[in-house]
Protein backbone atom coordinates (compact mmCIF):
# COMPACT_ATOMS: atom_id res chain seq x y z
CA UNK A 1 0.00 0.00 0.00
CA UNK A 2 2.80 2.39 0.94
CA UNK A 3 4.47 1.63 -2.37
CA UNK A 4 1.41 3.03 -4.15
CA UNK A 5 0.72 5.86 -1.78
CA UNK A 6 4.14 7.44 -2.01
CA UNK A 7 4.14 7.99 -5.79
CA UNK A 8 0.53 9.16 -5.63
CA UNK A 9 1.42 11.76 -3.04
CA UNK A 10 4.41 12.86 -5.11
CA UNK A 11 2.42 13.17 -8.34
CA UNK A 12 -0.66 14.85 -6.83
CA UNK A 13 0.66 18.43 -7.16
CA UNK A 14 1.60 17.75 -10.77
CA UNK A 15 -1.89 16.41 -11.49
CA UNK A 16 -3.41 19.56 -9.94
CA UNK A 17 -1.07 21.74 -12.00
CA UNK A 18 -1.90 19.80 -15.17
CA UNK A 19 -5.66 20.06 -14.55
CA UNK A 20 -5.59 23.77 -13.72
CA UNK A 21 -3.27 24.55 -16.63
CA UNK A 22 -5.50 22.67 -19.05
CA UNK A 23 -8.53 24.51 -17.65
CA UNK A 24 -6.87 27.92 -17.92
CA UNK A 25 -5.77 27.21 -21.47
CA UNK A 26 -9.25 26.01 -22.46
CA UNK A 27 -10.84 29.08 -20.85
CA UNK A 28 -8.49 31.28 -22.85
CA UNK A 29 -7.20 32.98 -19.70
CA UNK A 30 -3.55 32.50 -20.66
CA UNK A 31 -1.91 33.32 -23.96
CA UNK A 32 -1.54 30.01 -25.89
CA UNK A 33 1.98 31.07 -26.88
CA UNK A 34 3.07 31.06 -23.24
CA UNK A 35 1.30 27.73 -22.66
CA UNK A 36 3.40 26.29 -25.44
CA UNK A 37 6.59 27.77 -23.96
CA UNK A 38 5.66 26.30 -20.58
CA UNK A 39 5.29 22.86 -22.19
CA UNK A 40 8.64 23.27 -23.93
CA UNK A 41 10.18 24.10 -20.54
CA UNK A 42 8.69 20.90 -19.04
CA UNK A 43 10.04 18.83 -21.95
CA UNK A 44 13.47 20.47 -21.71
CA UNK A 45 13.47 19.73 -17.99
CA UNK A 46 12.84 16.01 -18.68
CA UNK A 47 15.77 15.92 -21.10
CA UNK A 48 17.98 17.93 -18.73
CA UNK A 49 17.13 15.56 -15.86
CA UNK A 50 18.45 12.79 -18.09
CA UNK A 51 21.73 14.64 -18.61
CA UNK A 52 21.88 15.32 -14.90
CA UNK A 53 21.73 11.56 -14.25
CA UNK A 54 24.55 11.06 -16.79
CA UNK A 55 26.81 13.97 -15.91
CA UNK A 56 25.59 15.37 -12.60
CA UNK A 57 25.15 12.10 -10.74
CA UNK A 58 27.37 9.60 -12.57
CA UNK A 59 30.04 12.08 -13.71
CA UNK A 60 30.08 10.99 -17.37
CA UNK A 61 30.84 14.01 -19.54
CA UNK A 62 28.43 13.89 -22.49
CA UNK A 63 28.33 16.48 -25.26
CA UNK A 64 25.90 14.53 -27.45
CA UNK A 65 22.66 14.65 -25.49
CA UNK A 66 20.68 16.28 -28.32
CA UNK A 67 21.40 13.28 -30.55
CA UNK A 68 19.41 11.02 -28.19
CA UNK A 69 16.69 13.66 -27.98
CA UNK A 70 16.60 13.54 -31.79
CA UNK A 71 16.50 9.73 -31.91
CA UNK A 72 13.48 9.75 -29.60
CA UNK A 73 11.81 12.53 -31.57
CA UNK A 74 12.23 10.84 -34.94
CA UNK A 75 11.30 7.38 -33.65
CA UNK A 76 8.11 8.55 -31.95
CA UNK A 77 7.13 10.83 -34.84
CA UNK A 78 7.72 8.08 -37.40
CA UNK A 79 5.67 5.50 -35.48
CA UNK A 80 2.84 7.92 -34.75
CA UNK A 81 2.72 9.26 -38.31
CA UNK A 82 2.78 5.80 -39.90
CA UNK A 83 0.48 3.83 -37.61
CA UNK A 84 -0.90 6.02 -34.83
CA UNK A 85 -3.64 8.22 -36.26
CA UNK A 86 -4.83 10.23 -33.29
CA UNK A 87 -4.97 7.54 -30.61
CA UNK A 88 -3.75 8.81 -27.22
CA UNK A 89 -2.79 5.28 -26.19
CA UNK A 90 -0.67 4.78 -29.28
CA UNK A 91 0.91 8.16 -28.60
CA UNK A 92 2.03 6.93 -25.19
CA UNK A 93 3.36 3.75 -26.79
CA UNK A 94 5.33 5.66 -29.41
CA UNK A 95 6.78 7.97 -26.76
CA UNK A 96 7.95 4.91 -24.85
CA UNK A 97 9.31 3.47 -28.09
CA UNK A 98 11.23 6.72 -28.62
CA UNK A 99 12.71 6.41 -25.14
CA UNK A 100 13.53 2.75 -25.76
CA UNK A 101 15.13 3.60 -29.11
CA UNK A 102 17.34 6.22 -27.49
CA UNK A 103 18.22 3.74 -24.73
CA UNK A 104 19.15 1.05 -27.24
CA UNK A 105 21.42 3.40 -29.20
CA UNK A 106 22.91 4.67 -25.93
CA UNK A 107 23.74 1.08 -24.99
CA UNK A 108 25.40 0.46 -28.37
CA UNK A 109 27.37 3.71 -28.12
CA UNK A 110 28.21 3.10 -24.48
CA UNK A 111 29.72 -0.36 -25.08
CA UNK A 112 32.86 1.12 -26.62
CA UNK A 113 32.63 4.77 -25.54
CA UNK A 114 32.22 4.33 -21.78
CA UNK A 115 35.72 2.86 -21.60
CA UNK A 116 36.96 6.40 -22.26
CA UNK A 117 37.40 8.83 -19.41
CA UNK A 118 36.44 12.46 -18.73
CA UNK A 119 37.12 14.83 -21.64
CA UNK A 120 37.72 12.01 -24.11
CA UNK A 121 34.22 10.68 -23.45
CA UNK A 122 32.94 14.21 -24.06
CA UNK A 123 34.69 14.36 -27.43
CA UNK A 124 33.50 10.89 -28.43
CA UNK A 125 29.88 11.80 -27.60
CA UNK A 126 30.32 15.12 -29.41
CA UNK A 127 31.50 13.14 -32.43
CA UNK A 128 28.53 10.80 -32.11
CA UNK A 129 26.20 13.81 -31.96
CA UNK A 130 27.62 15.20 -35.19
CA UNK A 131 27.39 11.79 -36.87
CA UNK A 132 23.72 11.56 -35.85
CA UNK A 133 23.10 15.06 -37.21
CA UNK A 134 24.60 13.95 -40.54
CA UNK A 135 22.36 10.85 -40.47
CA UNK A 136 19.26 12.97 -39.73
CA UNK A 137 20.25 15.24 -42.63
CA UNK A 138 20.42 12.22 -44.93
CA UNK A 139 17.55 10.29 -43.35
CA UNK A 140 15.28 10.71 -46.38
CA UNK A 141 17.59 8.52 -48.47
CA UNK A 142 16.59 5.43 -46.45
CA UNK A 143 13.20 6.45 -44.98
CA UNK A 144 11.49 9.15 -47.09
CA UNK A 145 8.97 9.93 -44.32
CA UNK A 146 11.73 11.37 -42.13
CA UNK A 147 12.27 14.24 -44.53
CA UNK A 148 16.05 14.57 -44.15
CA UNK A 149 17.47 18.07 -44.49
CA UNK A 150 14.09 19.47 -45.59
CA UNK A 151 12.58 18.60 -42.23
CA UNK A 152 9.82 16.19 -41.21
CA UNK A 153 6.24 17.41 -41.56
CA UNK A 154 2.77 15.93 -41.05
CA UNK A 155 3.25 15.05 -37.38
CA UNK A 156 0.03 15.14 -35.35
CA UNK A 157 -0.23 17.67 -32.53
CA UNK A 158 -0.58 15.30 -29.58
CA UNK A 159 1.43 16.82 -26.72
CA UNK A 160 -0.96 18.72 -24.50
CA UNK A 161 -0.40 20.57 -21.27
CA UNK A 162 -1.27 17.55 -19.16
CA UNK A 163 1.11 15.28 -21.07
CA UNK A 164 4.07 17.62 -20.58
CA UNK A 165 3.43 18.25 -16.88
CA UNK A 166 2.72 14.62 -16.02
CA UNK A 167 5.82 13.39 -17.85
CA UNK A 168 7.87 15.91 -15.91
CA UNK A 169 6.32 14.68 -12.65
CA UNK A 170 6.96 11.02 -13.44
CA UNK A 171 10.54 11.78 -14.53
CA UNK A 172 11.26 13.68 -11.31
CA UNK A 173 9.82 10.83 -9.27
CA UNK A 174 11.85 8.26 -11.18
CA UNK A 175 15.12 10.19 -10.86
CA UNK A 176 14.54 10.94 -7.18
CA UNK A 177 13.82 7.31 -6.39
CA UNK A 178 16.78 6.17 -8.48
CA UNK A 179 19.23 8.54 -6.79
CA UNK A 180 18.08 7.62 -3.29
CA UNK A 181 18.30 3.88 -3.97
CA UNK A 182 21.41 1.75 -3.60
CA UNK A 183 21.82 1.94 -7.40
CA UNK A 184 21.88 5.73 -7.17
CA UNK A 185 24.46 5.60 -4.40
CA UNK A 186 26.63 3.43 -6.64
CA UNK A 187 26.35 6.04 -9.42
CA UNK A 188 27.34 8.82 -7.02
CA UNK A 189 30.32 6.82 -5.78
CA UNK A 190 31.55 6.46 -9.37
CA UNK A 191 31.28 10.21 -9.84
CA UNK A 192 33.26 10.86 -6.68
CA UNK A 193 36.02 8.39 -7.43
CA UNK A 194 35.79 5.66 -10.00
CA UNK A 195 38.85 3.74 -8.87
CA UNK A 196 37.75 3.79 -5.23
CA UNK A 197 34.21 2.72 -6.20
CA UNK A 198 35.66 -0.19 -8.16
CA UNK A 199 37.75 -1.33 -5.24
CA UNK A 200 34.65 -1.27 -3.03
CA UNK A 201 33.18 -3.96 -5.26
CA UNK A 202 31.02 -1.82 -7.53
CA UNK A 203 30.95 -3.04 -11.12
CA UNK A 204 31.79 0.44 -12.44
CA UNK A 205 31.30 -0.31 -16.12
CA UNK A 206 27.85 -1.81 -15.55
CA UNK A 207 26.70 1.11 -13.42
CA UNK A 208 28.15 3.72 -15.77
CA UNK A 209 26.27 1.99 -18.58
CA UNK A 210 23.07 1.97 -16.52
CA UNK A 211 23.39 5.69 -15.74
CA UNK A 212 24.12 6.55 -19.35
CA UNK A 213 21.27 4.43 -20.78
CA UNK A 214 18.73 5.73 -18.25
CA UNK A 215 19.74 9.34 -18.84
CA UNK A 216 19.55 8.96 -22.62
CA UNK A 217 16.14 7.32 -22.42
CA UNK A 218 14.82 10.47 -20.69
CA UNK A 219 16.19 12.45 -23.63
CA UNK A 220 14.38 10.07 -25.99
CA UNK A 221 11.05 10.46 -24.16
CA UNK A 222 11.42 14.23 -24.15
CA UNK A 223 12.23 14.17 -27.87
CA UNK A 224 8.96 12.37 -28.64
CA UNK A 225 7.00 14.97 -26.66
CA UNK A 226 8.86 17.75 -28.46
CA UNK A 227 8.06 16.28 -31.89
CA UNK A 228 4.34 16.21 -31.12
CA UNK A 229 4.36 19.69 -29.61
CA UNK A 230 5.92 21.58 -32.52
CA UNK A 231 4.75 19.05 -35.19
CA UNK A 232 7.85 19.76 -37.28
CA UNK A 233 11.32 18.24 -36.94
CA UNK A 234 14.48 19.54 -38.50
CA UNK A 235 18.00 18.10 -38.04
CA UNK A 236 19.20 21.52 -36.83
CA UNK A 237 16.94 21.06 -33.77
CA UNK A 238 19.32 18.30 -32.68
CA UNK A 239 22.76 19.69 -33.44
CA UNK A 240 25.74 20.40 -31.22
CA UNK A 241 24.25 23.67 -29.95
CA UNK A 242 21.21 21.88 -28.55
CA UNK A 243 23.48 19.52 -26.64
CA UNK A 244 25.28 22.57 -25.28
CA UNK A 245 21.94 24.15 -24.26
CA UNK A 246 21.08 21.17 -22.08
CA UNK A 247 24.58 21.11 -20.62
CA UNK A 248 24.29 24.81 -19.73
CA UNK A 249 20.99 24.11 -17.96
CA UNK A 250 22.43 21.26 -15.93
CA UNK A 251 25.55 23.21 -14.92
CA UNK A 252 23.61 26.39 -14.13
CA UNK A 253 21.23 24.46 -11.91
CA UNK A 254 24.10 22.74 -10.14
CA UNK A 255 25.51 19.31 -11.00
CA UNK A 256 23.62 16.54 -9.28
CA UNK A 257 20.80 18.84 -8.21
CA UNK A 258 17.31 17.97 -9.47
CA UNK A 259 15.64 21.13 -8.17
CA UNK A 260 18.36 23.19 -9.82
CA UNK A 261 17.84 21.44 -13.15
CA UNK A 262 14.11 22.03 -12.90
CA UNK A 263 14.45 25.75 -12.13
CA UNK A 264 17.26 26.27 -14.64
CA UNK A 265 15.20 24.62 -17.42
CA UNK A 266 12.26 26.94 -16.82
CA UNK A 267 14.56 29.92 -16.29
CA UNK A 268 16.51 29.24 -19.49
CA UNK A 269 13.50 28.67 -21.74
CA UNK A 270 11.57 31.64 -20.33
CA UNK A 271 14.67 33.84 -20.53
CA UNK A 272 15.13 32.97 -24.21
CA UNK A 273 11.50 33.71 -25.00
CA UNK A 274 11.08 36.54 -22.51
CA UNK A 275 13.91 38.53 -24.08
CA UNK A 276 12.00 38.35 -27.37
CA UNK A 277 9.14 40.20 -25.69
CA UNK A 278 11.15 42.60 -23.51
CA UNK A 279 13.64 43.81 -26.09
CA UNK A 280 12.28 46.66 -28.22
CA UNK A 281 11.76 45.81 -31.90
CA UNK A 282 14.96 46.23 -33.87
CA UNK A 283 17.06 45.11 -30.93
CA UNK A 284 16.12 41.42 -31.09
CA UNK A 285 19.66 40.54 -32.24
CA UNK A 286 20.85 41.65 -28.82
CA UNK A 287 19.22 38.56 -27.34
CA UNK A 288 22.21 36.34 -27.98
CA UNK A 289 24.61 39.07 -26.95
CA UNK A 290 22.97 39.46 -23.54
CA UNK A 291 22.52 35.74 -22.85
CA UNK A 292 26.22 34.82 -23.08
CA UNK A 293 27.11 37.83 -20.91
CA UNK A 294 24.59 36.67 -18.30
CA UNK A 295 25.95 33.14 -18.59
CA UNK A 296 29.57 34.24 -18.07
CA UNK A 297 28.70 36.52 -15.15
CA UNK A 298 26.62 33.80 -13.49
CA UNK A 299 29.40 31.24 -13.84
CA UNK A 300 32.00 33.67 -12.47
CA UNK A 301 29.81 34.39 -9.45
CA UNK A 302 28.47 30.86 -8.85
CA UNK A 303 30.86 28.30 -10.36
CA UNK A 304 29.11 25.54 -8.39
CA UNK A 305 25.78 26.33 -10.10
CA UNK A 306 22.97 28.59 -8.95
CA UNK A 307 21.53 26.21 -6.40
CA UNK A 308 24.56 24.29 -5.22
CA UNK A 309 23.31 21.20 -3.42
CA UNK A 310 20.04 22.47 -1.94
CA UNK A 311 17.00 20.43 -3.03
CA UNK A 312 13.26 21.03 -2.75
CA UNK A 313 11.80 19.02 0.18
CA UNK A 314 9.81 16.94 -2.33
CA UNK A 315 13.04 15.79 -4.00
CA UNK A 316 15.02 14.87 -0.90
CA UNK A 317 15.35 11.27 0.12
CA UNK A 318 12.71 9.97 2.52
CA UNK A 319 13.97 10.09 6.10
CA UNK A 320 14.54 6.56 7.33
Amino acid sequence: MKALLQPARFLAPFAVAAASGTFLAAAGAVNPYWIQIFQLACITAVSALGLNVIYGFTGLFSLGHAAFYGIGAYTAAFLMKSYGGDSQLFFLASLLAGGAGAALVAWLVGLPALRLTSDYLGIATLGFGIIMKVLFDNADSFLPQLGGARGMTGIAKMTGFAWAVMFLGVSLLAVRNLIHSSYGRALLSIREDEVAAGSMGIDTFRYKMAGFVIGCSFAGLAGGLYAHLYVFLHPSNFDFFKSVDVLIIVVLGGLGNMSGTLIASFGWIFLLEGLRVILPPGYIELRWVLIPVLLIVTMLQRPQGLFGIREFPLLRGDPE
Partner: protein
Amino acid sequence: MEVFLQQVVNGLQIGFVYALIALGYTMVYGIVRLINFAHGDVFMVGAFIGLYAIERCNLPLPVIFLLAVFGCALLAVAMERVAYRPLRGAPKIASLITAIGVSLFLEYFTALRQVFGPNFYSFPRPFAVSSWEVRNISLTNIQAIIFFVTIFCLGLLQFIVHRTRLGRAMRAVSYDHVTAGLMGVNVDLVISLTFGLGAALAGVGGVLYGIAYPQVNTFMGVMPGLKAFTAAVLGGIGSIPGAVLGALIMGQSETLTSAYLSSTYRDGIAFLILILVLLLRPTGILGTSRTEKV
Protein backbone atom coordinates in the same frame (compact mmCIF):
# COMPACT_ATOMS: atom_id res chain seq x y z
CA MET B 1 45.11 8.17 -59.76
CA GLU B 2 45.49 11.79 -60.86
CA VAL B 3 42.07 12.60 -59.46
CA PHE B 4 43.09 10.98 -56.22
CA LEU B 5 46.38 12.90 -55.99
CA GLN B 6 44.58 16.14 -56.82
CA GLN B 7 42.19 15.49 -53.93
CA VAL B 8 45.12 14.76 -51.64
CA VAL B 9 46.61 18.15 -52.54
CA ASN B 10 43.28 19.86 -51.85
CA GLY B 11 43.05 17.95 -48.59
CA LEU B 12 46.50 19.22 -47.58
CA GLN B 13 45.29 22.77 -48.17
CA ILE B 14 42.42 22.53 -45.67
CA GLY B 15 44.46 20.23 -43.42
CA PHE B 16 47.17 22.85 -42.95
CA VAL B 17 44.59 25.49 -42.05
CA TYR B 18 43.05 23.09 -39.50
CA ALA B 19 46.55 22.48 -38.16
CA LEU B 20 47.01 26.18 -37.39
CA ILE B 21 43.76 26.19 -35.39
CA ALA B 22 44.41 22.81 -33.77
CA LEU B 23 47.74 24.02 -32.36
CA GLY B 24 45.95 26.65 -30.28
CA TYR B 25 43.56 24.06 -28.88
CA THR B 26 46.28 21.64 -28.05
CA MET B 27 48.51 24.25 -26.37
CA VAL B 28 45.70 25.66 -24.25
CA TYR B 29 44.45 22.21 -23.30
CA GLY B 30 47.97 21.09 -22.53
CA ILE B 31 48.52 23.95 -20.14
CA VAL B 32 45.14 24.49 -18.38
CA ARG B 33 43.12 21.37 -19.39
CA LEU B 34 40.39 23.57 -20.86
CA ILE B 35 38.54 22.96 -24.13
CA ASN B 36 38.59 26.56 -25.29
CA PHE B 37 35.39 26.57 -27.34
CA ALA B 38 35.93 30.24 -28.23
CA HIS B 39 39.09 29.44 -30.18
CA GLY B 40 37.17 28.89 -33.43
CA ASP B 41 35.74 32.37 -33.04
CA VAL B 42 39.20 33.86 -32.59
CA PHE B 43 39.96 32.30 -35.97
CA MET B 44 36.88 34.07 -37.37
CA VAL B 45 38.07 37.41 -35.96
CA GLY B 46 41.42 36.80 -37.66
CA ALA B 47 39.65 36.34 -40.99
CA PHE B 48 37.69 39.58 -40.52
CA ILE B 49 40.85 41.50 -39.59
CA GLY B 50 42.31 40.20 -42.86
CA LEU B 51 39.17 41.26 -44.74
CA TYR B 52 39.30 44.84 -43.43
CA ALA B 53 43.06 45.12 -43.86
CA ILE B 54 42.76 44.17 -47.52
CA GLU B 55 39.52 45.93 -48.41
CA ARG B 56 39.90 49.20 -46.49
CA CYS B 57 43.67 49.69 -46.35
CA ASN B 58 45.02 47.47 -49.12
CA LEU B 59 48.06 46.54 -47.06
CA PRO B 60 50.78 44.12 -48.20
CA LEU B 61 50.34 40.48 -47.22
CA PRO B 62 52.96 40.23 -44.43
CA VAL B 63 51.44 43.28 -42.70
CA ILE B 64 47.99 41.69 -42.92
CA PHE B 65 49.31 38.58 -41.20
CA LEU B 66 50.95 40.67 -38.49
CA LEU B 67 47.74 42.60 -37.85
CA ALA B 68 45.75 39.36 -37.56
CA VAL B 69 48.41 37.87 -35.26
CA PHE B 70 48.39 40.81 -32.87
CA GLY B 71 44.64 41.40 -33.01
CA CYS B 72 43.84 37.78 -32.19
CA ALA B 73 46.53 37.45 -29.55
CA LEU B 74 45.22 40.53 -27.78
CA LEU B 75 41.66 39.24 -27.95
CA ALA B 76 42.64 35.85 -26.50
CA VAL B 77 44.68 37.39 -23.68
CA ALA B 78 41.74 39.61 -22.76
CA MET B 79 39.39 36.61 -22.92
CA GLU B 80 41.61 34.58 -20.62
CA ARG B 81 41.91 37.46 -18.15
CA VAL B 82 38.17 38.14 -17.95
CA ALA B 83 36.50 34.76 -18.32
CA TYR B 84 38.94 31.96 -17.50
CA ARG B 85 41.48 33.16 -14.95
CA PRO B 86 38.96 33.86 -12.14
CA LEU B 87 37.75 30.26 -12.47
CA ARG B 88 41.11 28.54 -12.35
CA GLY B 89 40.47 27.00 -8.95
CA ALA B 90 36.79 26.21 -9.65
CA PRO B 91 35.43 22.95 -11.11
CA LYS B 92 36.61 22.51 -14.70
CA ILE B 93 33.08 22.52 -16.07
CA ALA B 94 32.59 26.14 -14.95
CA SER B 95 35.34 27.41 -17.24
CA LEU B 96 34.03 25.18 -20.03
CA ILE B 97 30.65 26.90 -19.74
CA THR B 98 32.24 30.36 -19.73
CA ALA B 99 34.21 29.30 -22.81
CA ILE B 100 30.90 28.45 -24.49
CA GLY B 101 29.57 31.82 -23.30
CA VAL B 102 32.56 33.68 -24.75
CA SER B 103 32.15 31.77 -28.00
CA LEU B 104 28.44 32.67 -28.33
CA PHE B 105 29.20 36.26 -27.36
CA LEU B 106 31.89 36.65 -30.02
CA GLU B 107 29.65 35.12 -32.70
CA TYR B 108 26.55 37.16 -31.99
CA PHE B 109 28.26 40.38 -30.91
CA THR B 110 30.31 40.54 -34.09
CA ALA B 111 27.18 39.67 -36.09
CA LEU B 112 25.59 42.96 -34.99
CA ARG B 113 25.23 45.44 -37.83
CA GLN B 114 27.44 47.94 -35.98
CA VAL B 115 30.33 45.45 -35.74
CA PHE B 116 31.06 43.04 -38.62
CA GLY B 117 27.46 42.44 -39.71
CA PRO B 118 25.31 39.34 -40.03
CA ASN B 119 25.83 38.49 -43.72
CA PHE B 120 28.33 36.53 -45.76
CA TYR B 121 31.03 38.85 -47.04
CA SER B 122 33.33 38.05 -49.91
CA PHE B 123 36.99 38.09 -49.03
CA PRO B 124 39.05 40.01 -51.58
CA ARG B 125 42.09 38.21 -52.96
CA PRO B 126 45.22 40.21 -52.16
CA PHE B 127 46.97 38.78 -55.24
CA ALA B 128 46.06 37.21 -58.58
CA VAL B 129 45.56 33.46 -58.52
CA SER B 130 47.86 31.42 -60.71
CA SER B 131 48.49 27.72 -60.89
CA TRP B 132 51.14 25.27 -61.99
CA GLU B 133 50.52 21.90 -63.61
CA VAL B 134 52.68 19.06 -62.41
CA ARG B 135 51.76 15.79 -64.18
CA ASN B 136 48.14 16.93 -64.57
CA ILE B 137 47.88 17.87 -60.90
CA SER B 138 47.28 21.56 -60.48
CA LEU B 139 48.85 23.45 -57.63
CA THR B 140 47.76 27.03 -57.01
CA ASN B 141 49.86 29.81 -55.54
CA ILE B 142 47.27 29.97 -52.73
CA GLN B 143 48.14 26.41 -51.80
CA ALA B 144 51.83 27.21 -51.98
CA ILE B 145 51.38 30.19 -49.64
CA ILE B 146 49.35 28.08 -47.21
CA PHE B 147 52.01 25.35 -47.16
CA PHE B 148 54.88 27.78 -46.65
CA VAL B 149 53.17 29.99 -44.06
CA THR B 150 51.99 26.99 -42.05
CA ILE B 151 55.37 25.30 -42.11
CA PHE B 152 57.05 28.56 -41.12
CA CYS B 153 54.62 28.96 -38.17
CA LEU B 154 55.17 25.37 -37.11
CA GLY B 155 58.92 25.78 -37.18
CA LEU B 156 58.65 28.97 -35.16
CA LEU B 157 56.38 27.29 -32.62
CA GLN B 158 58.70 24.30 -32.24
CA PHE B 159 61.56 26.73 -31.72
CA ILE B 160 59.65 28.69 -29.08
CA VAL B 161 58.49 25.62 -27.19
CA HIS B 162 61.78 23.72 -27.20
CA ARG B 163 64.52 26.33 -27.45
CA THR B 164 63.44 29.37 -25.43
CA ARG B 165 62.96 30.20 -21.76
CA LEU B 166 59.27 30.89 -22.41
CA GLY B 167 58.88 27.46 -23.99
CA ARG B 168 60.55 25.81 -21.05
CA ALA B 169 58.25 27.69 -18.68
CA MET B 170 55.24 26.59 -20.74
CA ARG B 171 56.29 22.97 -20.54
CA ALA B 172 56.87 23.29 -16.81
CA VAL B 173 53.42 24.81 -16.20
CA SER B 174 51.81 22.15 -18.37
CA TYR B 175 53.53 19.41 -16.37
CA ASP B 176 52.62 20.76 -12.93
CA HIS B 177 51.59 24.36 -12.50
CA VAL B 178 51.87 24.44 -8.72
CA THR B 179 55.46 23.21 -8.71
CA ALA B 180 56.32 25.44 -11.66
CA GLY B 181 55.04 28.41 -9.66
CA LEU B 182 57.19 27.39 -6.68
CA MET B 183 60.22 27.23 -8.96
CA GLY B 184 59.76 30.89 -9.83
CA VAL B 185 57.79 30.59 -13.07
CA ASN B 186 55.20 33.34 -13.43
CA VAL B 187 52.29 30.97 -14.05
CA ASP B 188 49.67 33.62 -14.90
CA LEU B 189 51.94 35.26 -17.44
CA VAL B 190 52.86 31.95 -19.07
CA ILE B 191 49.21 30.96 -19.38
CA SER B 192 48.35 34.36 -20.89
CA LEU B 193 51.17 34.05 -23.39
CA THR B 194 50.09 30.52 -24.31
CA PHE B 195 46.59 31.77 -25.06
CA GLY B 196 48.11 34.62 -27.07
CA LEU B 197 50.42 32.34 -29.02
CA GLY B 198 47.63 29.90 -29.88
CA ALA B 199 45.36 32.75 -30.93
CA ALA B 200 48.11 34.26 -33.10
CA LEU B 201 48.30 30.99 -35.06
CA ALA B 202 44.50 30.94 -35.37
CA GLY B 203 44.66 34.51 -36.71
CA VAL B 204 47.11 33.43 -39.42
CA GLY B 205 44.79 30.49 -40.12
CA GLY B 206 41.82 32.84 -40.42
CA VAL B 207 43.53 35.00 -43.04
CA LEU B 208 44.69 31.92 -44.99
CA TYR B 209 41.18 30.43 -44.85
CA GLY B 210 39.73 33.70 -46.14
CA ILE B 211 42.17 33.71 -49.05
CA ALA B 212 41.50 30.05 -49.91
CA TYR B 213 37.69 29.97 -49.40
CA PRO B 214 36.80 33.61 -50.09
CA GLN B 215 33.63 34.01 -48.06
CA VAL B 216 33.49 35.00 -44.42
CA ASN B 217 30.73 35.16 -41.84
CA THR B 218 30.78 35.56 -38.08
CA PHE B 219 29.75 31.90 -37.64
CA MET B 220 32.46 30.57 -39.95
CA GLY B 221 34.62 29.50 -36.99
CA VAL B 222 32.19 26.98 -35.51
CA MET B 223 32.74 23.96 -37.75
CA PRO B 224 36.49 24.50 -38.40
CA GLY B 225 36.86 25.04 -34.66
CA LEU B 226 35.14 21.75 -33.80
CA LYS B 227 37.12 19.92 -36.47
CA ALA B 228 40.42 21.41 -35.42
CA PHE B 229 39.70 20.47 -31.84
CA THR B 230 38.83 16.96 -32.98
CA ALA B 231 42.09 16.91 -34.92
CA ALA B 232 43.98 17.87 -31.77
CA VAL B 233 42.31 15.03 -29.85
CA LEU B 234 42.86 12.62 -32.73
CA GLY B 235 46.59 13.35 -32.76
CA GLY B 236 46.87 13.28 -28.98
CA ILE B 237 45.93 16.45 -27.17
CA GLY B 238 48.83 18.36 -25.70
CA SER B 239 51.19 17.18 -28.45
CA ILE B 240 52.21 19.68 -31.15
CA PRO B 241 53.19 17.15 -33.86
CA GLY B 242 50.02 15.24 -32.93
CA ALA B 243 47.83 18.27 -33.65
CA VAL B 244 49.37 18.66 -37.10
CA LEU B 245 49.06 14.96 -37.86
CA GLY B 246 45.43 14.93 -36.70
CA ALA B 247 44.63 18.02 -38.76
CA LEU B 248 46.12 16.49 -41.89
CA ILE B 249 44.06 13.32 -41.35
CA MET B 250 40.90 15.44 -40.89
CA GLY B 251 41.68 17.37 -44.08
CA GLN B 252 42.19 14.18 -46.08
CA SER B 253 39.09 12.46 -44.73
CA GLU B 254 37.04 15.53 -45.56
CA THR B 255 38.16 16.00 -49.17
CA LEU B 256 38.27 12.29 -49.97
CA THR B 257 34.76 11.74 -48.59
CA SER B 258 33.47 14.68 -50.62
CA ALA B 259 35.17 13.38 -53.75
CA TYR B 260 34.33 9.68 -53.56
CA LEU B 261 31.23 9.37 -51.36
CA SER B 262 29.10 12.43 -50.90
CA SER B 263 29.80 15.83 -49.41
CA THR B 264 26.77 15.45 -47.13
CA TYR B 265 28.60 12.67 -45.27
CA ARG B 266 31.79 14.73 -45.00
CA ASP B 267 31.50 15.70 -41.33
CA GLY B 268 30.20 12.28 -40.31
CA ILE B 269 33.21 10.37 -41.63
CA ALA B 270 35.69 12.73 -40.00
CA PHE B 271 34.13 12.14 -36.58
CA LEU B 272 33.78 8.42 -37.20
CA ILE B 273 37.55 8.26 -37.66
CA LEU B 274 37.96 10.15 -34.39
CA ILE B 275 35.80 7.67 -32.49
CA LEU B 276 37.58 4.65 -34.01
CA VAL B 277 40.99 6.08 -33.13
CA LEU B 278 39.91 6.89 -29.58
CA LEU B 279 38.73 3.32 -29.12
CA LEU B 280 42.09 1.91 -30.20
CA ARG B 281 44.28 4.59 -28.60
CA PRO B 282 42.22 6.44 -25.97
CA THR B 283 44.72 9.31 -25.72
CA GLY B 284 45.12 9.88 -29.45
CA ILE B 285 47.74 8.78 -31.95
CA LEU B 286 50.76 10.54 -30.41
CA GLY B 287 49.31 11.15 -26.95
CA THR B 288 50.83 9.84 -23.76
CA SER B 289 48.57 8.32 -21.14
CA ARG B 290 48.57 9.32 -17.51
CA THR B 291 47.76 6.70 -14.94
CA GLU B 292 45.00 7.58 -12.54
CA LYS B 293 45.55 7.14 -8.85
CA VAL B 294 43.09 7.16 -6.01
